[in-house]
């Protein structure tokens, strides 16, 4: 009976078939997963091709640059959101923080010069993200409630700075701060560079790997030695910095700090992130996907605006919501199939 307990050199010949890296998925699931991850890019390509064939005006240089420029700054919110959502959280405050960043930048440009205009929003919005991150990471409060309160708080803060929205701060004429976001290429290049850096941070650094681990399985991440609290906090700091920075660049472009801006931007940012293939439950996603999501919605919005000019933005909100619902259903279906496996 005890024969099995002895080590037999004969066993080293390994009579068993090797355990292979077999997949535990069906073909349909793999297909759906591909759709979920790469769907945005595919649909984007499709939409661009169809619309360039059907409406010649679409491919005109002017139209394309207007799509790119018009969405560069909002895209930065989605970049931050990508990190937050992959880590398993959500940041509903980015729209307000975006507006806050703009007002601070304009105020800074007027009162302290270009450098203040750049640093002030970054510092304040980064600190704002830090507070939210600490609340989420240290107290165990739900991210959605903390950042929902943050949305209100940031909006209140910017109203207070602008005397209830009555003073609109202008960037002084001639300040080089105004050149930062002007023209076609500066905003587009900024977005491209930041997205590239974001992709590098997410895919090629320990911090990025920790973000994935945290969102994928927080318990396992803890046991694997991931600094859970620090990673969680940093993710919200990053989101705050990007939202504030985007607001700052936008203020430079508009040469003033607009107070009513940014309402509902958080929803767009979440929608494009998820449509771009990031799992809302956390643990998977990509910066490239988010970029595709941003462009896809921008193109659709452009087309809708082209055909039914009157309700352009609301129609695209409806499309957003419908898209989101479909993608989320797909994600849920996939994660269920996974659990059963």
């Amino acid at each position: 009976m005890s024969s099995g307990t002895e080590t037999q050199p004969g066993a080293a010949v390994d009579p068993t078939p090797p355990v292979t890296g077999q997949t535990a998925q069906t073909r349909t699931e793999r297909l759906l997963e591909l759709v979920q991850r790469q769907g945005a890019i595919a649909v984007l390509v499709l939409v661009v091709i169809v619309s360039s064939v059907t409406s010649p005006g679409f491919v005109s240089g002017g139209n394309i640059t207007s799509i790119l420029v018009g969405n560069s700054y909002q895209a930065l919110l989605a970049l931050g959101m990508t990190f937050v959502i992959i880590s398993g959280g959500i940041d509903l405050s980015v729209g307000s923080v975006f507006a806050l960043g703009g007002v601070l930048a304009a105020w800074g440009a007027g009162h302290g010069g270009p450098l203040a205009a750049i640093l002030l929003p970054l510092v304040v919005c980064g600190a704002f993200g830090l507070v939210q991150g600490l609340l989420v990471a240290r107290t165990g409060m739900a991210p959605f409630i903390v950042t929902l309160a943050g949305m209100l708080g940031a909006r209140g803060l910017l109203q207070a700075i602008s005397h209830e929205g009555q003073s609109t701060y202008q960037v002084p004429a001639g300040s080089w701060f105004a050149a930062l976001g002007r023209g076609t290429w500066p905003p587009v290049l900024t977005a491209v560079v930041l997205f590239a850096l974001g992709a590098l941070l997410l895919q090629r650094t320990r911090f990025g790997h920790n973000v994935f681990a945290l969102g994928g399985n927080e318990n396992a991440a803890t046991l694997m030695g991931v600094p859970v609290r620090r990673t969680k906090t940093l993710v919200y700091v990053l989101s705050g910095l990007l939202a504030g920075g985007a607001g700052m660049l936008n203020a430079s472009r508009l040469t003033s700090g607009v107070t009513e801006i940014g309402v509902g931007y958080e929803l767009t940012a979440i929608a494009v992130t998820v449509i771009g293939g990031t799992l809302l439950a956390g643990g998977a996603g990509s910066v490239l996907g988010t970029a595709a999501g941003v462009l896809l919605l921008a193109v659709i919005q452009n087309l809708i605006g082209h055909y039914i000019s009157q309700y352009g933005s609301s129609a695209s909100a409806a499309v957003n919501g419908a898209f989101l619902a479909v993608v989320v259903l797909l994600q849920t279906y996939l994660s269920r199939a996974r659990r059963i496996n």
Partner: protein
Amino acid sequence: MTADLAAGAARRVNRAQLVGWLRDYGVYGGIVVLLIVDTALNPNFLSASDLRVQTYQLVPTLLVSLGMAVVIATEGVDLSVGAVIALAASLIPLYLGYSAWIAVLVCLVGGAIAGLVNGLLVAAAGVQPIVATLAMMIGLRGVAVIFNGNQAKPIFDETLTGLGLNSTFGVPVMAWIALVVIAVAVFVVRRSAFGQRMLAVGDNRVASQLAGLPVRRVLLTVYIISGLLAALAGVLLVGHGAEADPANQGLNIELSAITAVVVGGTPLTGGRIRVIGTVAGALFMQLLSATLIQHNVPNSYAQMVEAVIICAAVYVARERGSR
């Protein structure tokens, strides 16, 4: 050393008790304090005209909060309530031509359908409540604006504006509606089979499932209730403002509703509901903003105070959950 331990334990119990007390009754204390402060500083604070204005502002939020409380009791959340209000606001002008009551009916049906979709996403498809209702929040307002157009439309129908402005027996119609809804809510929670099942599902879903409860049906129902109440709030907002403005009506009301529920002592973790507490929570937040406005505190600071109160209320409620 044993004595030390015992003392430590006693202190912990006291702290837990204190936090529990604060969670359950803090809101009533808050209301009393605000009333005392306000009447002391301004004897006219409780004047009839003032109360009327407060009521108009309170009731829509209150209705939405009650729907939210029911959803939160099942460990969910409904972020789409503001969008449902927008939907109601967009439907009214479309159907007002037939009759005011038909328009109201259509609104309620629309709200119920929105709730049904939320419920199906959560109960049948298994999507997390935040995510499901977030998709609705984004999409529905867009749909509403498409129905209505970007401009607010004035409403002249007297039945509707009457709902928002008239009084019966000296009390605004709105307040009567709210009282009826509160009474029904108390009754349902205390007396109906549904009320008990809802709490059971929110408290321990696995056990409820094993006990043979119709878990999916319960979840569907709570989201439909939330949608219905939000639509009703939308009707009242349109009637009171005498205009339908889907682009702006109901913005951020989900936050006020969640705040009212949490401040009123219903934990976000489900399994408990405090109807009267929720009413008190909504009242407290309304009084707070009225007080701040009356003392010329700018809206901006009021918002920041509200943000802090939300965090504090959730933090206090969480303390219990972690025990």
